[in-house]
């Protein structure tokens, strides 16, 4: 197991997580309820209650480089069951935002899938499944990922061949444009 040096807490990191999530991470007393209910715990490198502890201890690198924050599916089990009413899932979300901004993406394929999805929304206003798949394949080179589903899906007409364009697609793409221009992430702090 990796050891984590605790002698230099990054206070700025603690403050930033608290402010961007609106949660008081210091009230976590490590009861482990969040971890006990986390369906992804089997795949996590750092369990969700340990992520909370590492945030309290100001361990920026260890937290932002963990795989767990990308694997979290936002299932809300932790938030629902935390006895201190901490919105743990929201903290996991905020940690992902911060990891993105810092250029970390320890689960490259998960990030690529999310990016492909949003690009499709930005372009068409609605998500276009085949487009997302094609773009995901380009980003990751994983062509065979779901090819075994095609015989089940194609005869059911469940994949639309054409994008679902909407009249207001420019309005939607402008939301993304303004988002990038304004750098909302920083404003949130």
């Amino acid at each position, binding site marked *: 197991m990796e050891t984590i040096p605790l002698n230099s807490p990054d206070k700025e990191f603690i403050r930033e997580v608290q402010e961007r999530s609106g949660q008081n991470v210091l009230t976590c007393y490590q009861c482990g309820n969040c971890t006990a209910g986390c369906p992804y715990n089997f795949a996590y490198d750092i369990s969700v209650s340990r992520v909370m502890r590492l945030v309290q201890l100001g361990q920026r690198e260890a937290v932002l480089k963990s795989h767990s924050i990308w694997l979290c*599916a936002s*299932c809300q089990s932790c938030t*629902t069951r935390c006895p201190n009413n901490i919105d743990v899932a929201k903290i996991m979300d905020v940690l992902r935002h911060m990891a993105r901004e810092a250029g970390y993406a320890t689960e490259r394929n998960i990030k690529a899938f999310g990016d492909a*999805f949003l690009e499709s*929304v930005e372009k068409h206003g609605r998500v276009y499944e085949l487009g997302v798949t094609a773009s995901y394949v380009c980003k990751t080179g994983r062509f065979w990922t779901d090819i075994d589903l095609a015989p089940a899906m194609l005869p059911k007409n469940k994949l639309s061949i054409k994008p679902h364009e909407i009249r*207001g697609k420019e309005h939607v793409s402008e939301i993304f444009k303004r988002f990038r221009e304004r750098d909302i992430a920083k404003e949130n702090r």
Partner: protein
Amino acid sequence: MSISVGYYPGCSGSGTSVEYDKSTRAVCKKLGIELNDIDDWSCCGSTPAHTVNHTLSAALSARNLVLAAKQGQEEVVTPCPSCLANLRTASRKIEDETYRPKVEALLDESCEKAATVASTLQLIVEKVGMDAIKKAVVKPLKDLNVACYYGCIMNRPPELMQFDDSENPMAMDNIMEACGATVLPFPLKVECCGAAGGMPRKDLVTELSGRLLDVAASLNTEIIVTACPLCQMNLDLRQGQVNRANGTSYDIPVVYFTQLLGLALGLSAEEVGLSKLVVDPTPRLRFAGVL
């Protein structure tokens, strides 16, 4: 009874879950609910948006709530729990006067007038009610053992969703019972199926959906009933992948609650889109005398 609300079908409704959209519309019509599509609705951004930024996510959802209000709808319903979570979160953000300007800045539009949001499941439970459903049933689902699977976010977190129980939801159980089915006590009702991990990390889906199918099989479940496009896809379309990964050979149909409810209300297999399902439910439904 006449109820009229705004309707947000969500992107999967015109793709991977056409049968959910189709059966939802048919059931609502049958129950006297008028669904008015939000004209020119756009994607809520789903999970990817909120993992990038909360204000971006809120703005993508808010566009639809503002559109709905402009079209005269005070309330919008959606069948998809993931859309529901995003729309509700956005709704809460624009009610907050200190947060609203951030969303308005991205939208370039006022959010003061925006519709509220609920699930179609909640609408049916609260506005129609079990007594009315019981009365409307013409083809009881008797001799059918069903397990109702809600997925993780239909009722969670409870402060946000404000509907049913976050650990042991009963809305679909009650509807199925009102339709005459035998509802099994399914202990993994709110566990996660692997969500959108399917494409990037199939191993997570086969593990988590595998657990759900294992438990359903151990209860002698004949049909799994769902309310979420992603859950339905992982359990139905990916059931073969799950079987291959785990060395199992399950063959359990996974249907939307609106499909079974529709059949009980006298709609045809075609009207509820049964042929769109991958694991064919017709042998069991025929055996139970529903088809």
